[in-house]
């Protein structure tokens, strides 16, 4: 699985808190605790999945890796280099090596630019190939992504959702990145198109030897597509384990709840109970103790006071839940 000792990407104890100024008059800022003490690793050639529901911070994490925001605490290392505090100008090379594909294929493409303009701009900005070779490369990229090269002269709104997503992927790949962040790349698409895109992403990964961080709320897709999975809840990592052992070895009560909440595959598998009730707490309050304590079937008193740390449960398996790790009931 991992070929090098140094992971391509390493995130250590990352916290990202946003503050937005309240109304001009009152001037009380509201804070959003998007990420709290999050750590992850991705080795070259891996597909690492980040799964969680809305508000868990997975998109923020994806953007943090790209340094589209500034971390409040913690460190991000890419190819051994600390990129946590670099400024925009210094990040220019990083922005070639780490690329992103967004969830909403329509919103992430400039409506007023042709496909050619988009691809050329990226290639020329990062000096990917000589100017006279760009046309050929653009056409080649589009074909690789399953599109007809005559798409070059057209505008985003002339394409279907699935096609636009392929364009987004082509754009990301045009600068030959090493790491690709896929932020819910198939969530906005019909199921049969999802399958096409996932197959495409996998073949591109092999062709370009990419490392992929795959962010999704869909457990089934993540289980199918990724090598390792990180489960997030309310800004924290609650569990991390290899994908093939997800169903058998998941221990964190939230992970188990997520798995049980997935609709059945057959009418005979209907369940009568609802696995997790209640609501996610507001991200505007500073988290106290375990984020999941209020909804957790296994919670004890100490859960509300002390923030659980991620502990090893087995090979490549970590859980942030003292109750599960130490069997304290």
């Amino acid at each position, binding site marked *: 699985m991992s070929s090098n000792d140094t992971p391509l990407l390493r995130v250590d104890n990352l916290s990202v808190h946003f503050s937005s100024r309240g109304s001009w008059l009152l001037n009380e800022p509201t804070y959003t605790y998007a990420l709290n003490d999050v750590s992850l690793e991705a080795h070259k050639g891996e597909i690492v999945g980040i799964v969680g529901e809305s508000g868990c911070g997975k998109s923020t994490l994806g*953007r943090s890796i*790209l340094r*589209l925001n500034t971390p409040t605490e913690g460190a991000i290392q890419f190819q051994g280099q600390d990129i946590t505090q670099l400024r*925009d*100008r210094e*990040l*220019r090379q*990083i*922005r*070639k090596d780490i*690329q*992103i594909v*967004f969830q*909403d294929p*329509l*919103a*992430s*493409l*400039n*409506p*007023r*630019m042709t496909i050619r303009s988009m691809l050329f*701009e*990226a290639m020329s*900005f*990062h000096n990917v190939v000589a100017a006279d070779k760009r046309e050929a490369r653009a056409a080649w990229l589009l074909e690789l992504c399953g599109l007809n090269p005559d798409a070059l002269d057209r*505008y*985003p*709104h002339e394409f279907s959702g699935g096609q636009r997503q392929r364009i*987004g992927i082509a*754009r990301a790949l045009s*600068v030959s990145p090493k790491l690709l962040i896929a932020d819910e790349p198939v969530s906005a698409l019909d199921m049969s198109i999802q399958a096409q895109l996932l197959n495409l992403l996998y073949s591109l990964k092999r062709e370009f030897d990419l490392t992929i961080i795959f962010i999704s709320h869909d457990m089934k897709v993540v289980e199918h597509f990724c090598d390792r999975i990180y489960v997030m809840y309310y800004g924290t990592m609650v569990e991390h384990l290899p994908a093939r052992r997800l169903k058998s070895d998941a221990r964190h009560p939230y992970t188990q709840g997520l798995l049980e909440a997935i609709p059945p595959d057959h009418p005979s598998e209907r369940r009568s109970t609802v696995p997790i009730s209640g609501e996610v707490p507001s991200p505007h309050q500073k988290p106290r103790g375990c984020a999941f304590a209020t909804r957790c079937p296994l919670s004890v008193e100490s859960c509300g006071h002390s923030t659980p740390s991620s502990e090893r449960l087995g090979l490549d398996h970590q859980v942030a839940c003292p109750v599960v790790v130490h069997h304290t009931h």
Partner: protein
Amino acid sequence: MNIPNTTFQDLRTRVTQKFRGSPVAIFSLMVIVVYAIAAVMVMLGLVANDFDARVGEKFMSPNATSWLGTDRLGRDILSRIVYANKIAFIVGLVTATLSVLLGTLLGALSGFFGGWVDAFIVWLYSTVESIPYLLLLIAISYILGAGLSGVYLAFVLTFWVGPCRIIRGEVLKLKEAEFVIAARAMGYGPMRILFRHIVPNTLHLALVNFTLIFVAAIKSEVILSYLGLGVQGEPSWGTMIDQARAELVNGFFWQIGGATVAMFLLVLAFNIATDTLQQALDPRQTR
């Protein structure tokens, strides 16, 4: 967020469709075109350049040679009105172009960079806006003296506020759009993102502002001339109306009537066309 997912081609189709659907709008457009052609013809020296020629007796009523009669110096009123059309068009064009350019630039910088740049520009346009624009126009023209360049400067300094505020608002919205984040993720710098990615998505608003300022300039020129601060030496609708005031007392209304009607028609046509344009460009109208 909802970004108008349109291109220039797409906008063109919508605009043509909207116009085709409204006979009034088409008529307005025709009126504007006629006026524009007339203005060009005047500029090329093809018509009405003899606006100073004495063609007949003073205060003649409309007759075979002078379709709208003559003024107090015996000059053909119709020729003067047509000539004044050229002035109106030029004033409108120059004012609208410069105002939109200046306003868009300041609005884009303001909305995108925020901070003290934004604070300063917002303060600036709030201040300018709070002064009744007539007083502002008068004050500036007075300082600069009467004459065309004074008029331009006064107008641009007054009218840049409209586009500035609107473009600023739009840029604020677009700043958070996903394709802008995508551009940042590609490593592009702020200037490139602002002018190559964001501003082109605001041009539909700039266009509407352009036509609005065009009309406002024409109307304001009339008012300035009425106050003696406007164009000198050449007839403009404003000076004609100003001069014709006294004639009304004597029952002679052809000059003031002609100039007023000419202006009114153009302004009305522009208003209708702008309304239709605005409806066509409204992103909420997308299917």
